């Protein structure tokens, strides 16, 4: 008695989950709450959302609305317990709905096609009747059999024969396509499973790593919660390139080295869309910037090339002197700007703190033509030439920029990708493959042979109908009709 009651309770829950109503409710809930989540900025400072709410509801209602949404977890809603729970309910609904319907479909898939009664053939959604006159059918039924079978083969199906109650030829194709829906459903579950694995066994963090520095940790949040990497990462250099003369970045690149137990084990330069991976941890180029209070502390890398091709590289600071190799020409750096521009009066001005257009002012002596000085720009090689034919190349300003990287470890990502591949597969089966079935019944009629063709397709009936037309044509006229 007790047992029965319990079972019926489980049955009831099962039925609730197997119902379409449940699916509609969950769909609606996830969609509606997600909409709210896209309007409110997630994980943002309170001011931002209060501003949004003020815009929508007015200044009076905004603080109360903010408290309301905060209490319900809408400000980090995609990680709130109720949203995760709704996703899990969705998964449960998907599993139970699929299990409920799967056995029936499996039976349809597994059961091979059988001959059916003639009056059933006539009721198929695609049907066709042919009458072959007596003198034709005289040339033996075996000839007709061959003709039908080869016609079926010509439209891409493998015929079987049955001789009970008159001859019947039947064939089917793509019976597995009915499973496409369930493969798609399974792929959603695999993706969710991969996401959960990533959530529990992976991490998302970031590092702002200055040029020349090394780190063994990344940071999970703005409070500075550390995540150990298990190895050390050094930023050797960072560089931004621009489109032409504009300040629009074309690429930002970091040169990274990985050290394990004090030894360099890997080296790679990364750009956006091309990360570095080591021991399951991946580093993505995401931002860059200038180290605060670093003005004037950068190392200016210059390469002096004399007119007969001798060159030497110098690492300098403002105030330092250097000599162009093989000559008595000396230069001194007297000024530096991270982003130099000329205003309409020809006066120089620094327009940004970041290294947008670095330039050094160099004063030369010993050129023979008298004192010479001028700005040398890193981005504009035409400013590198000196009057005596030698050249001063501005290579880099080093040690004042940092590279901003996303750091991720996610052992679930391969499972997510696997799920995606399976989903593509399942969708293809569901929408582009069809279960096609065909029966051709042969009955002796007075004065001839009657051939009844019946067929069905689970999808794209029109295309199969055309094939059946071809089939009928081929049976009717012999081999000539085929293509």
């Amino acid at each position, binding site marked *: 008695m007790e047992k029965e009651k319990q079972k019926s309770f489980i049955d009831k829950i099962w039925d609730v989950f197997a119902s*379409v109503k449940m*699916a*509609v409710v969950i*769909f609606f809930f996830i969609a509606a709450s997600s909409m709210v989540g*896209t309007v409110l900025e997630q994980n943002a400072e309170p001011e931002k959302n209060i501003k949004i709410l003020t815009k929508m509801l007015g200044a009076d209602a905004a603080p109360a609305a903010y408290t309301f949404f905060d209490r319900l977890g809408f400000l980090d809603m995609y990680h709130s317990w109720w949203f995760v729970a709704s996703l899990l309910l969705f998964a449960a609904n998907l599993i139970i709905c699929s299990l409920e319907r799967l056995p029936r479909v499996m039976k349809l898939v597994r059961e091979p096609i059988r001959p059916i009664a003639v009056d059933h053939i006539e009721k198929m959604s695609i049907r066709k009747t042919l009458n072959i006159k007596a003198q034709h059918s005289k040339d033996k039924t075996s000839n007709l059999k061959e003709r039908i079978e080869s016609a079926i083969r010509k439209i891409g199906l493998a015929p079987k024969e049955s001789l009970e109650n008159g001859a019947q030829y039947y064939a089917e194709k793509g019976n597995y396509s009915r499973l496409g829906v369930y493969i798609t459903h399974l792929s959603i579950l695999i993706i969710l499973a991969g996401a959960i694995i990533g959530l529990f066994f992976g991490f998302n963090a970031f590092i702002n790593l200055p040029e020349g520095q090394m780190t063994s940790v990344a940071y999970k949040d703005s409070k500075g919660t550390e995540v150990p990497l298990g190895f050390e990462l050094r930023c050797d250099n960072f560089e931004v390139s621009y489109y032409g003369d504009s300040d*629009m970045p074309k690429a930002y690149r970091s040169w990274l080295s990985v050290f394990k137990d004090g030894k360099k084990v890997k080296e790679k330069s990364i*750009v956006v869309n091309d990360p570095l991976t080591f021991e399951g941890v991946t580093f993505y180029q995401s931002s860059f910037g200038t180290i605060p209070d670093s003005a004037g502390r950068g190392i200016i890398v210059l390469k002096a090339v004399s007119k007969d091709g001798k060159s030497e590289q110098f690492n300098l600071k403002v105030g330092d002197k250097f000599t162009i190799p093989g000559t008595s020409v000396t230069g001194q750096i007297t000024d530096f700007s991270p982003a130099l521009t000329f205003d309409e009066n020809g006066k120089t001005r620094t327009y940004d703190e970041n290294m947008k257009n670095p330039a050094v002012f160099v004063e030369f002596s010993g050129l023979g033509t008298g004192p010479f000085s001028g700005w040398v720009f890193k981005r504009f090689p035409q400013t590198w030439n000196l009057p005596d034919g030698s050249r001063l190349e501005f290579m880099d300003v080093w040690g004042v920029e940092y590279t901003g990287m996303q750091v991720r470890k996610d052992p679930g990502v391969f499972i997510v990708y696997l799920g*995606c591949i399976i989903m593509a597969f399942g969708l293809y089966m569901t929408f582009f493959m069809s279960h096609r079935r065909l029966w051709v019944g042969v009955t002796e009629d007075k004065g001839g042979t009657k051939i009844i063709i019946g067929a069905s397709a689970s999808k794209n009936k029109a295309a199969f109908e055309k094939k059946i037309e071809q089939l009928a044509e081929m049976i009717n006229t012999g081999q000539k009709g085929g293509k």
Partner: protein
Amino acid sequence: MNSSFFFGLSTIAYIFAMISYIAYLTFKNKTVGLAATSITFVGVISQTFALGLRWSEFAELGQMGLIRAVPLTNLYESLIFFVWCLMIAYLIIEFKYKNRSFGAFITPVAALVLAFIDISGMSKNIQPLVPALQSNWLLAHVMMSFISYSMFAISFSTALMYLIMKTEKRTEPAYIFWTVMLAVFVLVLSAMGLDYISFKLSVKSQEELIRSYLFKASFRSSSSAVAVLSYTVAAAFIFFVWRFGGALRKLIAGFNISHETLDEITYKLIATGFPIFTLGGLIFGAIWADQAWGKYWTWDPKETWSLITWFFYAFYLHGRLMRGWKGKKVAMVAVLGFIAVIFTYLGVNLLLSGLHSYGAQ
């Protein structure tokens, strides 16, 4: 000759095509119909040419290979590409179903989009790619997304036509649904047009117009009299469409197209668009996000809205197989699905903020 010449030519062709399709519907003259199809065809050819030219112009400017220089990186380019997909999809349907009646519905959409581009004064310049967009995934992800959007757009109009044909009583929920939807659609477009006329001089960009001045000339006007008047006019208009919607049914009934065909076209478009959207929009998008940002899913507004859109169409596909949902109810879902598409495409970029903010430039 550069791409803008051919874009201009295609715009003119689509406007003439629209006039011809409407004339065809009015006079039922075969020659006019044939002319409409030919003009549309010329428009598509010229636009194809323009797209190819812009592609190579872009490759030259951005100094990169052809695969990466996809001209689909801002609002202008994406709208142009959307129109192109829409017209091709339309021509395929016209050819397959041997029916020109939809032309009078689809060509105005194309003309409206092209007019929107011109009056809004959005930037038509080629902008070099920001680092995040320099990826081979751009081609597959954006192109497949827009191909599916154009299919959803046509399914929206066929579903709406289906609803118009199938509803007879004014008290019927489906009747109320489509009349209100249609009225709101027209009202929103008119209110935005009013915003544009009133504030075009005080804003610098289309983005600013929508972000700061949306409905400020009507519903959200600083003068309460204007606001009240706007709401009254809107209510009156909705009532008008509801009261006289039957006239539209009589018009569509004259198209000699059956509601079964409309239902079939809606289904076939969604059944093709849905897997393309899933693969190109969601899956390729996730793979690309994983490569560029280190996260395959961040619940960024664009991602979330595409998931909502995906839910709507998944529900449509399941709903067709459910007792009591086939017919009018799923047609309503198809209409709502496209509203989600519009929001995913435009609303997110113009109204919300997030990682996917390229399109608003």
